[in-house]
C-alpha cells in the first residue's frame, strides 16, 4: 500500500437548537464522513458529535429553536477535532466529567461516552463549549491498495 497524499477537511456549521436539526445535520455528516473515514471511525465520530450536539441542544439551549448551536469539525493529519458550543449557562464539568452512571440509571451517560471514545475532551471554563479530539485510522492518507486498474 502506497500513499499518495493528505486529505484535510473542515466543516463549520450553525444549527437551530432542535433534535430535528441535529438529525438533518447527520444526514450530511454521514454522506461526507463515509467518503472521508473508515467505517469504524464513522461510528465513533458520529457518536462523539451526537453526544456533544445533543447536550448543547438539550442542556445548553433547552431545545429552543430560536437558539443556535455551533459546530466545527476538522479532519487533519489523522485527527478529528470536534468543537461544539452553545450560548447557555454551561455547567460544572469539573465535577460531571468524571462521573460514571450507575448501571441502572437512565441518564448521565453522555460524558462517559465522550471519555470512552475520545482521545481528549476539553471544556471552556464556563462549560458551554467542548473540544474533542479523536485519532482516526483512515483519516489523512489514502492508499491505492488494490483498487487500481
Amino acid at each position, binding site marked *: 500500500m502506497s500513499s499518495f497524499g493528505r486529505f484535510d477537511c473542515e466543516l463549520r456549521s450553525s444549527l437551530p437548537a432542535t*433534535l*430535528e436539526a*441535529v*438529525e438533518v445535520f447527520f444526514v450530511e455528516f454521514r454522506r461526507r464522513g463515509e467518503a472521508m473515514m473508515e467505517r*469504524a471511525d464513522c*461510528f*465513533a465520530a*458520529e*457518536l462523539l458529535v*451526537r*453526544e456533544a450536539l*445533543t447536550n448543547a441542544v*438539550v442542556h445548553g439551549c433547552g431545545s429552543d429553536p430560536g437558539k443556535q448551536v455551533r459546530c466545527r469539525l476538522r479532519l487533519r493529519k489523522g485527527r478529528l477535532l470536534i468543537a461544539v458550543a452553545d450560548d447557555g449557562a454551561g455547567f460544572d464539568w469539573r465535577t460531571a466529567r468524571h462521573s460514571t452512571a450507575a*448501571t*441502572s*440509571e*437512565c*441518564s448521565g*451517560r*453522555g460524558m*462517559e*461516552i465522550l471519555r*470512552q471514545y475520545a482521545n481528549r475532551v476539553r471544556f471552556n471554563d464556563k462549560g458551554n463549549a467542548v473540544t474533542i479530539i479523536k485519532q482516526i485510522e483512515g483519516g489523512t492518507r489514502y492508499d491505492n491498495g488494490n483498487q487500481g486498474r
Partner: protein
Amino acid sequence: MTMVTREDNRAVVQPGGDMIVAATIPELRARMRDIVDQGVRDLTIDLAGVRMVDSSGIGLLIAAYNSLRKVGGRIALIHASNDVLELFRSMRMHQHFSITGN
C-alpha cells in the same frame, strides 16, 4: 414505525428507523410502555436495522429494563451490530441484558 410482534406475554420489538437516539426515542418509549402495561414480561429488542445508539438510547433501554424488572420480567437485545455491541460492552450493559450480535 416501530414494529411489535406479540405472543402471550412475550414480544419482539423492531425499532423504526435505523437509530435509537435522542430524536427518535419518544415514539419507541411510548410503544415499550404500552407493551409492558399490556402484560408483556419477556421483551426482545431486535437491533438488526439499528446502525446507531446514543446515550439517550442506552437510557431508554435501561428504563425498559428497570420497569420490567419491577414486575418480574426480562429483556434481551439481539442482532446488535459490532459497533453497537462494542458500545454496550464499554458501557457495561451486559450486567443487565442478554445481548447478542448478528
